[in-house]
């Protein structure tokens, strides 16, 4: 029984695999929320699963749960969750590759959600564009935890999730659910957000039986930077061991979201010596006859490109190819008295959505 607190003021119903969502007004807080229940009461255990998962994790990229609705026997028959009024992602692929920023932001936020979920011991199991939506302020949130697993040793006998997004190992007999399965779905999601034409082998049972799917780069050649092409391709590795973790995906995408926005500052004494940025990406620091250091900003990090003479970074010999630490001291010269010091600090902008 839906308590009188919640007013059904619209007929709008959204339907998913097993459930329906109905917009209702929470009169206590004066806000619209979503009343979710199952088409068939036989599937009500999915609601229990959803409650377990949603109350176990706190993540800015997972839908909020507010209330549980019970029937007259005290059994769960529905849940009240956050209404996500922003855009959904099933048609997002039409913006690809023009809206590359939006694409990366979406992937980053999904990876954030998976990082938080996996850290809380939850496998979502049904990661796909239809299960994510934006809040009014444009924050992507993942929902539909009806078939998620909240403990580590969960074995599934049925329900592989959704075709195209299901990892090959879900076709094994009684597979144990693992975070790597969500990572595979994430890789498939990266495809589904980019195109609606998929390589045939992604639909095989199990997927990619006849060979690896082509690179995601083929959707729009050259549009996605090679590091991210490799990252997404790795997510779809038929061998779970080859897939990156959610955290690694999040960090890599986060880095690319602020590409070109870093600044590096070289300071000697109280003097600013040089500032590196996207517009001035190279510098050669030469201190007397003691040494020379060439540094280049490649949009992601500050790298040493050349060293002559005696130059040290945080007291270790500087080597071409090394990345400058976010904050470090560069020493020019090898003997105590004649040494010169240059401080380096860099900003690594926060990804705040």
């Amino acid at each position, binding site marked *: 029984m839906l308590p009188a607190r919640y007013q059904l003021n619209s007929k709008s119903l959204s339907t998913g695999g097993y459930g329906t969502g109905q917009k209702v007004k929470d009169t206590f807080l004066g806000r619209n929320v979503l009343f979710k229940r199952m088409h068939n009461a036989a599937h009500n255990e999915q609601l229990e699963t959803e409650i377990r998962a949603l*109350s176990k994790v706190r993540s800015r990229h997972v839908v909020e749960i507010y209330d549980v609705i019970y029937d007259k026997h005290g059994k769960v028959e529905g849940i009240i969750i956050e209404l996500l009024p922003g855009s959904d992602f099933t048609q997002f692929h039409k913006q690809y590759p023009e809206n590359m920023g939006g694409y990366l932001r979406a992937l980053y936020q999904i990876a954030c959600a998976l990082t938080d979920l996996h850290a809380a011991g939850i496998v979502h199991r049904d990661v796909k564009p239809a299960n994510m939506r934006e*809040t009014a*302020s444009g924050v992507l949130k993942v929902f539909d935890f009806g078939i998620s697993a909240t403990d580590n040793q969960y074995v599934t006998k049925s329900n592989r999730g959704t075709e195209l997004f299901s990892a090959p190992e879900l076709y094994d007999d009684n597979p144990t659910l693992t975070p790597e399965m969500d990572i595979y779905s994430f890789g498939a999601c990266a495809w589904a957000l980019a195109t609606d034409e998929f390589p045939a082998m992604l639909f095989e049972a199990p997927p990619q039986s006849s060979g690896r799917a082509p690179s995601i780069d083929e959707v729009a050649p050259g549009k996605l930077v090679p590091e991210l092409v490799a990252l997404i391709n790795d997510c779809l590795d038929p061998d779970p061991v080859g897939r990156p973790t959610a955290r690694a995906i999040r960090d890599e995408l986060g880095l690319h979201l602020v590409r070109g926005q870093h600044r590096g500052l070289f300071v000697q004494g109280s003097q600013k010596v040089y500032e590196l940025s996207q517009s001035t990406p190279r510098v050669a620091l030469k201190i007397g006859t003691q040494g020379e250091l060439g540094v280049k900003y490649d949009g992601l990090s500050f790298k040493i490109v050349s060293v002559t003479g005696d130059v040290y970074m945080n007291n*270790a010999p500087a080597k071409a190819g090394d990345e400058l630490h976010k904050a470090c001291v560069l020493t020019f010269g090898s003997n105590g008295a004649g040494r010169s010091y240059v401080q380096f600090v860099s900003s*690594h902008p926060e990804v705040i959505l």
Partner: protein
Amino acid sequence: MSAHRFKSGDILIGRYEILKYLDAGGMQEVYVAKDRALNRKVVMKTPKAGSSDKRFARGAEMSARVNHPNVAATFDYFETEGTTCLVEEYIQGKDLGKRLAEDYHFMDPALAAHTLHHLARAIHEAHRVDICHRDLKPSNVMTSDDDALSSIKLTDFGIAKLAESKIGDEMDLFNRDDSTLTSSKTLLGAVPYMAPECWNDWKKAGQPSDIWALGCIAYHLLAGDPPFGSGRIAMKNLTLAERDGVKLAKPAWFGLHSSTATLEAELWSLINACIQIDPALRPTAESVVKTCDSFCYAASTRLCGTVGDFPITFAAGGIGNFGFILDATQGKHFFHGSDFFGVEGPKSGQRVAFSEYPGVPRPRSCPVLLLRSS
């Protein structure tokens, strides 16, 4: 304990079990409770006896409208046993007021920029949905437990609505009898961050008043004290500023650290833009967010430790402007004196928070922020 409305073990509306009394603000009692329907910890707020008011309900509605990662989520609101309760997301940590009182003398520019950036996001979202906070102050900001303050959330929009009437009443009282200031906890907490237009007519508090308060908080983070002081002194200083223009004193340590000179200048310019007498001249929240987006700082994780040896005497004689920090497991971390931010020191035994980067033979710590001794 009997002074509190609820005690541990009380169960409200068959769902919320009071775990413990947490705190009281000027107008509300705050509890940690367990939501038994969802099996999770929550924060429960209820107006103090005597300040119960239909505005609390209205305030709850306002909180519920601001849905943002930098705003504590509103979960529930109900009425029971003659009172009203607001249920919010539980955040493991401390409010910023306590942080400033217990942990920091002041924040280094990177930590201040990070804090300001997240707060600006929260205010921008509130203003976007047409809500003013009106009672912005450090104690209304929750920060996570870690030394990098990785999660920052604005709370108490609900109380802000209550504060509106309460502060209004207290200001009326104050206008008739100025000895009431010290007895009014609510008014006193709000004074250091309150914009001049609110003093002249409380009902004029609007979005620019939030920006003023944000500027005052930013100043407080960096200088260790609010820009105009507190209590009666703040009011006197504000009156002078209205007459002669705002002349903020730079934090004493500004200009001592070459590596953060640029960020210091950027923060200083933003603070001065926010703290302008004429509300129309202050930037919008959106513009503050854009400015923060352009700041150059590293929001790296931070460790906690104690200054060991400083300064170091070379074997061959002479003293180096560097030293070592010991962490909880007696691990040694190198730092240079120029990267130390504190009211005094560095000296042995001081508690510090620091970020660090690889180095030889020890990792190098930067920045190193002095914490209050515990």
